[in-house]
């Protein structure tokens, strides 16, 4: 299989004052054309940083990639200059932001914004808006973002991301600002576009149920690392990392009616407080002495020393 995106040993750090800390450490994964890979984790686990590091779209100019390699269709992205990277953004790598209200320019009409990102030979603005499931695209194109509803704005944002006909689409919690029904529609729109155009989709979400429904494979991140990476069906049925099992147990949709869903005791360690051992050990029921001293590597899709002891 020829991977569209190959990420090897990727480490990204942010700066806080004079100190630097790793938001993402030694990530490895692949993405095939047309594949949907979901990245699941709680807030602060580094999933958005991972996404931003691929086209190097950091919100903070101090953030940087410290080591590792990111290859898009065989081309190394780490080490490219800003001028070399710019033509790839939009055209090769599309980005769907979380908050469509903030990600659309308030003083430009939607049509003008989509048109700005168009590439020659692609669909027209109106076609793109129609593809994004917007009724009456001509009227939408002539509207300002504030005149649209939240769902319409998110669809417009999808049209904007697809305007450059990218090979790789990065979606950062594209549905967390929407209600579940709308969210599902947007995700079906995204996954459908990927299937049709052979575009890879990297979907970041904190909702494991949503990831299992829409992605072919799911990567679970915890404290800056991937702790489990497996096909969605397998991961949902037989988790091989205690954190995944805990996440599944905490999913309201999988909890029987009338039962309280399980919470994970404790909190994820802050980036500067991560110790030498497994970052999940303090919250883990299976943790032993070895877990606190030695960090488990991602082997056969699980970064746990005792994957067979995990109970769903």
């Amino acid at each position: 299989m020829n991977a569209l995106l190959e990420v090897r040993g990727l480490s990204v750090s942010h700066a806080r004052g004079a100190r630097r800390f790793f938001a993402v450490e030694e990530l490895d994964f692949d993405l095939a054309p047309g594949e949907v890979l979901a990245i699941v984790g709680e807030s602060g686990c580094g999933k958005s940083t991972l996404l931003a590091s691929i086209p190097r779209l950091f919100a903070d100019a101090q953030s940087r990639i410290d080591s590792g390699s990111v290859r898009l269709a065989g081309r190394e992205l780490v080490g490219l200059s800003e001028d070399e990277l710019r033509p790839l953004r939009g055209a090769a790598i599309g980005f769907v932001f979380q908050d469509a209200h903030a990600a659309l320019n308030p003083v430009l009409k939607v049509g003008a914004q989509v048109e700005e990102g168009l590439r020659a030979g692609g669909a027209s603005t109106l076609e793109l808006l129609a593809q994004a499931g917007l009724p009456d695209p001509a009227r939408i194109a002539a509207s300002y973002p504030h005149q649209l509803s939240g769902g319409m704005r998110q669809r417009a944002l999808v049209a904007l991301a697809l305007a450059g006909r990218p090979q790789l689409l990065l979606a950062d919690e594209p549905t967390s600002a929407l209600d579940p029904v709308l969210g599902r529609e947007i995700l079906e729109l995204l996954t459908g576009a990927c299937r049709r155009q052979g575009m890879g989709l990297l979907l970041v979400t904190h909702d494991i149920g949503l990831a299992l429904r829409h992605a072919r494979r799911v990567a679970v991140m915890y404290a800056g690392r991937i702790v489990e990476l497996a096909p969605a069906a397998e991961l949902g049925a037989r988790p091989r990392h205690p954190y995944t099992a805990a996440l599944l147990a905490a999913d309201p949709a999988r909890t029987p009616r009338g039962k309280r869903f399980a919470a994970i005791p404790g909190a994820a360690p802050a980036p500067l407080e991560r110790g030498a051992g497994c970052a999940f050990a303090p919250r883990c029921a299976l943790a032993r002495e070895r877990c606190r001293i030695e960090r488990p590597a991602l082997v056969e899709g699980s970064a746990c020393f005792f994957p067979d002891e995990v109970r769903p």
Partner: protein
Amino acid sequence: MAELRTVLQCWRRRPLFWAALALVCALHALGAAAPLVANDAPLWLAAPGGARFPALEPLNACERFVLLLAPWILCTPLWAASSWRTRIGFGWPAFALVLALVWQLSAGARTFVPAGEWKRQLGAQSALFAPIPFGHSETNSSEPWRPPTWLAASEIDEQGHYVERNVMGHPGGLELPPSPVEVRAGEPARNAALRHPLGTDALGRDLAARVVWGARNSLAVGLASALFALVLGTLLGSLAGWRGARTDLVVSRAIELVLCFPVLFLVLLVVSVGSGGVSAVWTISGVLGLTGWTGVARLLRAEFLRLREAEFVLAARGLGFSEWRIVLRHALPNALAPVIVATSFFAGTAMLAESAISYLGAGLVEPEASLGGLVRGGTEHAWMVIFPGAVLALAVIAWNLLGEELRDLNDPRIPGRRA
């Protein structure tokens, strides 16, 4: 017809904005067309060697360009509301520029004729005069301090005596030695209501003509210094806000430094030191602009500091747009609304500052007129204060109103935008 409906619809959506724009444009058009509105030289003259246009002969290239722009300025509320706004908005000035250059090249040497000389030399030739047939520096020693001629108190008999003697407009109740009023060619009759509708000053110069030319200079100072401040403030403010770090530090300190200058004294100093051949209008505009850019710069800096972090800027970067494009098309339009308001207010403020300077006697040099200088010319006579003062107030109010309305227009959250 359809176009007319578009325009009317546009006006109806934001009547106050279009009214303010029309007022500002009308005043500026009046200033730009001053040589055709108030002039002692005839507009057209049937000379022996063919027709002549004496009013246009002393104009330089810049003044000719401005004159050609006058109808464009006057019609702004019309074309800006129509669907040809881009074509006319840029097309007319470009056309006027070419026309002014051709005119400049084809015209002979500029001729300077002393004020009032054309009228004295006119003889039996037929001529067409401006609506106000007086020059701004044309004196008439036979009628100093004449009150507005539509007042009964302004009536003068054949010997040059006021008919109602005790209400005379000169200081201390003194009567000037009687001398018959000199009525020159092209001027209204001695006691015509429209001879001097706004009265005259100490040298018998027509106040209406001087208000027109004074407004031309004062409005030019307001507009030029506002544009100067806008350009300088936009450049420096956006640079500081976008680049941040050391650039921001330098610009912010520069702003604080400039804010410490006492502007009025600085202008007085520069004007009194002199500026070589440059007209005082440009010197004053330059100084006001150089000290006035800080307001615009501070607004833009703050806006750009905010916009730099905005998600739609990040999104624009994610679409692969260049830095220039992001700044010009995505950041700047989002930062402009407060800047436009500040600039409009600044135009009004600059006009007031120029008036203050001229009132102190340090602005434009006589016989050049400015609204503030006219007030200084005769504080003891009501008409010398009321008329220039009213025009000044009108202009400042118009600018401020336009600023307010422009802000609403640029705010997408206020309904009825893009009128």
